């Protein structure tokens, strides 16, 4: 693919910056928050990917973090889609959601949705996906 990085979505980012729990809310009347720096993903865990012993947080960060960490492509798209529906900007982060189920997450990962391409079992194995889905669903099947 040969395209350039788009100009910053400044207004959206500022909203997102204000909404992200990890960033402090600046006092009224102060300068807008600084632009976000690069968000590091967790390092690729060692070990058998078919029976993963890595934590769900690590797996989510490493596999989904390309797009779903703060300021990621997926987070930004979800914010643009969810805010007009009345959802909070913070709910654009998958880890803040309380309406995801295990089956829904698995289906979206394997079948893709919107700008999100399908993930193969090399991208994320069934064992890794099961952990990530449990983690994001927080017990909801």
């Amino acid at each position, binding site marked *: *693919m*040969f*395209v*350039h*990085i*788009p*100009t*910053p*979505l400044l207004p959206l*980012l500022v909203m997102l910056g204000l909404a992200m729990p990890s960033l402090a809310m600046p006092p009224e009347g102060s300068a807008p928050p*600084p*632009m*976000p*720096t*690069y*968000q*590091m*993903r967790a*390092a*690729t865990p060692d070990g058998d*990917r*078919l029976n993963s012993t890595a934590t769900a947080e690590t797996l989510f960060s490493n596999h989904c973090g*390309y*797009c779903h960490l703060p*300021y*990621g*492509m*997926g987070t*930004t*798209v979800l914010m*643009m889609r969810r805010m007009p529906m009345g959802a909070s900007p913070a709910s654009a982060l998958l880890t803040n959601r309380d309406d995801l189920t295990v089956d829904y997450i698995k289906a979206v990962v*394997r*079948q*893709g949705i*919107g*700008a999100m*391409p*399908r*993930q*193969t*079992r*090399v*991208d994320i*194995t069934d064992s890794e996906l099961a952990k990530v889905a449990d983690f994001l669903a927080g017990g909801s099947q």
Partner: protein
Amino acid sequence: MSRILPPGVSAEQYDAAIKEFATVVGNDWVLDTDEDRVSYLDLYAPGSEHQWPASAAIAPGSVEEIQQVVKIANKYKTPLWTVARGKNLGYGTAAPRLAGSLILDLGRMNKILQIDDELGYVVVEPGVSFFDLYEELKRRGSRLMMSVPGNGWGSVMGNALDHGVGYTPYGVHARNICGMTVVMPNGELMRTGMGAMDANHAAHLFPFSYGPTWDQMFTQSNLGIVTSMGMWMMPTPESSLELKWDIPEEDDIAWVIDTLAPLKISGVVDQSIFVPSWLGKLSVKGTRAQFWDKKGAMPDWRVQELLKEHKLGYWQVALRLYGEEGIVKARADVVKNAFRKAAPNLKAEETWWHEGDPINTMDPSAGTLGIPTAMPLMMGEWVGGRSAHLGFSPVVPASSKHVMGQLKRSRELIAKYDMDFYASFTIGGRFCNNINMLMWDRDDEAGTRNVINLFNDLIRVTREAGYGEYRTHLGWMDAIADTYDFNGGSANYFNQVVKDALDPNGILSPGKQGVWPTVYKEFAKNGRLD
């Protein structure tokens, strides 16, 4: 989706091959379910994605496993379509050119084998993404800077092998390749360059070793499987300055190219200079429907209104200089003087960066500072629906005569097909890569047909004018190969002779870039969009 077998392979033969592959990689790394087959389809296919189906995928975990898989594939005559991470979005994703091929997915092999800060290179396996490498360099405190393409989700190696480009002084990625380890079509292992000598210390430092030079033979190619590769990397500069100009008029591209190309050729500017048109900037300010709610191309008067409203030029130049501050300042003076002569009223917006300054992920200059991102995938939001994109990418000499000619040619055709015009010219040396981005909704059947017809016209008209494409989608690999027609297509003939000699069973990626082994030649007619 049902299983499409490779041509000439019976179900029994295929099942026997699958069983034997499983003894090498393990049952769980033979991906043979319907869900797996769907996951390897081309999600941006122009028309049905079932035009290029894989029969299954195999994911080896080591060089030895690849060698054994290739030997088994030769035994059962099951073609393998090799992908690094399979993220060649817009060019076919991970899907094979020949229906029924097995995907050889090298994504599991994701080790960074070497990082050499002193001499400025890395050695990577196919599964290493731009994000993986960037983060590992940071974790180790390396001073090497990457060159990244628009989407950093893909493979560092796969991108360079497919002639991908970025926007730093190391932006012509295939040029950074030095020293490969390759599995040959018969399953034997070889090394290119100095590395052909066992334990040679300069394996990734000097490309012109002894005898013929083969590194580039394995780019955009089906002559071997590259299992690791040396890549030259740029040391992070002490400082960097971005000079940005909004260029008001469409025809201004003529003086922009004639001003910048000599600076690039003489080395005053060392980056690959990216000059995009307005749509790239507008597409991140909202969706198309918010600016123009009718089908068909946005009319010129509306474009002019929007440019004024959003304070955009028709083009934008965001040029970056790298190095010690004194050198950067001196170079900036030369560049600014050249611009002043051509356009006395335009003033550059200047932004300094110094080593250690935090780099903002979403800043458009992140790309010229080597920060990977997936943000360009957001361009899908512009069109809406099940959006897809294609790039029509001819190479033109870096001079106004050729650039203006191509601009007018593609602009006229794109207007004739009633689509929005979104182009860029990237000066990578004595040439420009011109990308005409076509975005459409895959659920719109007539719109999809329109894009296919337009693409065919673009290929024909551009060839007639004396220019060719450097990269393309599966559906046009043969059509583009056909445009390389000197002496009755003797280069294509040469490719096929080499292919048949090295790979008589035609096992490795048949049809890649229009290179067909004789055994599958008759299937070249399928899966074509021209």
